[in-house]
């Protein structure tokens, strides 16, 4: 199903273009720039992913249902999708938009000049790779590279771990050196000298696996938090030893993914009630497991709140 959607809509889920781009219209981000902020649609999709995974989890419990076939049929079109999947709440959607805005504003604040490709922005295809569909991934990646070239993109600012990993490691691995540079917004912010001031509350850090173990963005994350004057706690499984949120298998087995997330939540709550994440997938999965018990914040939300 997800694969089919990627083929048809260039995204794992069929949502309307405005869902993906509305945040940027508000900020009047220019289109034609050599440097672009790249969302990969991930943050925008979080509320929809949550609804879909909840739906899948319901199906998974039932015996004798050919899971893949059934949902494959059900969720193939935008219209069907809208019928089957509960519409996410406005708050949930707004929250994700605010996250994107916060990142964009933080970049502006330190005078990074960048654009955004709006509805032309392609999905990175990373899910194809994670599921083992390397040929499909390669084909998809080629399209993305061509599109960047056509639009004169020289540098991509990524804002989530999965796209970062795809562009930095997988694209060169499958296609050889690419024409554009890739830099993660955390790297950019960590190098700048912005400052912040925050309420006196402390957060428990949940490092995304990819930042911690594949991209080595560990100290950078902390230096941003420190620059904002925010306090933080390190759980036992932190930094290189961080613990997965379960997200990568949520489409294969929502129940198992949730169990993984529950284990992580079990650990995190021993350290505090407010959790700091830096990945939309981590956010979605930990949230699914923690419910209202924990408050989960994206790094950018804290940046937005504390930046001066």
């Amino acid at each position, binding site marked *: 199903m997800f694969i089919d959607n990627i083929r048809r809509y260039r995204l794992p889920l069929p949502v309307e273009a405005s869902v993906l781009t509305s945040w940027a219209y508000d900020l009047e981000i220019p289109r034609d720039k050599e440097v672009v902020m790249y969302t990969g649609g991930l943050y925008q999709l979080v509320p929809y992913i949550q609804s879909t995974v909840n739906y899948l989890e319901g199906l*998974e419990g039932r015996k004798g249902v050919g899971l893949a076939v059934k949902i494959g049929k059900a969720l193939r079109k935008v219209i069907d999708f809208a019928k089957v999947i509960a519409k996410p709440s406005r708050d949930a959607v707004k929250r994700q938009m605010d996250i994107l805005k916060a990142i964009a504003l933080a970049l502006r604040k330190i005078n990074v000049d960048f654009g955004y490709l709006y509805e032309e922005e392609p999905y990175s295809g990373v899910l194809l790779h994670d599921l*083992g569909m390397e040929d499909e991934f390669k084909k998809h990646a080629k399209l993305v590279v061509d599109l960047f070239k056509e639009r004169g993109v020289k540098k991509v600012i990524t804002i989530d771990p999965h796209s970062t990993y795809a562009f930095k490691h997988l694209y060169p691995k499958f296609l050889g050196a690419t024409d554009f540079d890739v830099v993660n917004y955390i790297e950019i912010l960590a190098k700048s000298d912005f400052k912040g001031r925050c309420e006196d509350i402390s957060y428990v850090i949940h490092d995304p696996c990819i930042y911690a173990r594949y991209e080595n963005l560990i100290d950078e994350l902390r230096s941003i938090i420190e620059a904002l004057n925010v306090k933080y706690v390190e759980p036992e499984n932190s930094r290189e*030893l961080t613990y997965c949120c379960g997200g990568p298998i949520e489409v294969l087995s929502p129940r*198992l993914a949730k169990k*993984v997330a529950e*284990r992580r939540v079990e650990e995190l709550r021993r350290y505090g009630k407010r959790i700091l994440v830096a990945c939309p997938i981590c956010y979605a999965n930990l949230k699914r497991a923690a419910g209202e018990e924990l408050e989960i914040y994206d790094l950018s939300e804290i940046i937005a709140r504390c930046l001066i």
Partner: protein
Amino acid sequence: MRSAREVAEVLLKALEDKDLQAGLDRSILNSIPLIKGTLKRNPYIEDLAKRVKKAKDEVLGNIEYYIDKTMDNIRRFKGVAHFAKTREEVYKILDEVVGSEKMVVKAKSMVTEELKVREHLIERGNEVWETDLGELLVQLDKSKPMHTIVPSIHITKERSAQLLRGLGFNGGVEEVREMIEFVRRFLRERFVKAHVGISGANSVDANSGAVILVENEGNIRHVTNLPNIHVSIAGVEKIMPSYIDAICQAMVQAANIGTYPPTYLSAITGPSSTADIEFIRLYGVHGPKELHIILYDGGRIKVLKEGIFADQLHCIRCGRCQLECPIWQLAGNMWGGEVYGGPMGVIWTAITEGVEKAAPLALFCLNCGKCKEVCPMDIDIPNMMSELKRYYHDIRTS
């Protein structure tokens, strides 16, 4: 090839297995802090691990040379050297050396699990006893080992008592001490009567053919010492280029299990001997008269040549990647093939049972990278998992 859904069902069933879940929780809770503490107190282990990795690179890059060299040196020290390419060849050697109607005591070893040595010897009419307590429980339970080091994590004390009743134990379910006492007495008789002791090997020194074995219970000492014949079976990847490297490997493994130093570290070079009377060397004094070492290929050499899963042959079977893997923590070796489970186990399954068996299992790898991070040999398991995922997809679509 199994589908993703079939694997998912097995994993979800494991979630419902209360004994397994309790056992997994206990082993995670106890082991991880123990291991971290051990490594912190003994920081030199990290350097030793690097040394071991380098030594393994040397051997794995010249495997035929090292097999020959090891065989020659086993003979030089009066051991009997065997090389077996397949399971059938191992059986043939065992049939010759052990025969039938013998009493056989066994030490726990993954490669003998892989080869189903116990089952084969029983089929040939021998009486065979696992002597590691956990493995004995698994034998009685007719289940499979759930962890490389503590195979019986899925068996509660209640179930243990019940299983031991079959052997004559009549104490209560709370009396773990009594259970151990009982097993000690029960096996002691068998150790003395046994004709053959069978063990694996943590490592084998190419220069002397020495077999290195690590343990805490003390059963391996009996298995390798009391019977007239000792047979050690080792995968060819266990060969190390020197005696000291072989010992280092055992130390690194023990530290990454959290019991360090291990209670017993045995290094066995040749059968027991004496030259105390007029300097005439005679074999078989207190220990075995015969020492057989079987170097087992079982697809490993081919894997080394093909390259895709070659990295896994650096594995020292410490089980660290299992303990730290979120999926293993939920499903134990139910996420695995017939013998090997968890991150290392999925790749070992690919090597020993074929990629078709391993590929659907690999789909459930989170690619979170934790196994690689904690592995003392820095084995890139996630990368090999990706290969298996791709394979799954290629087969499904073709």
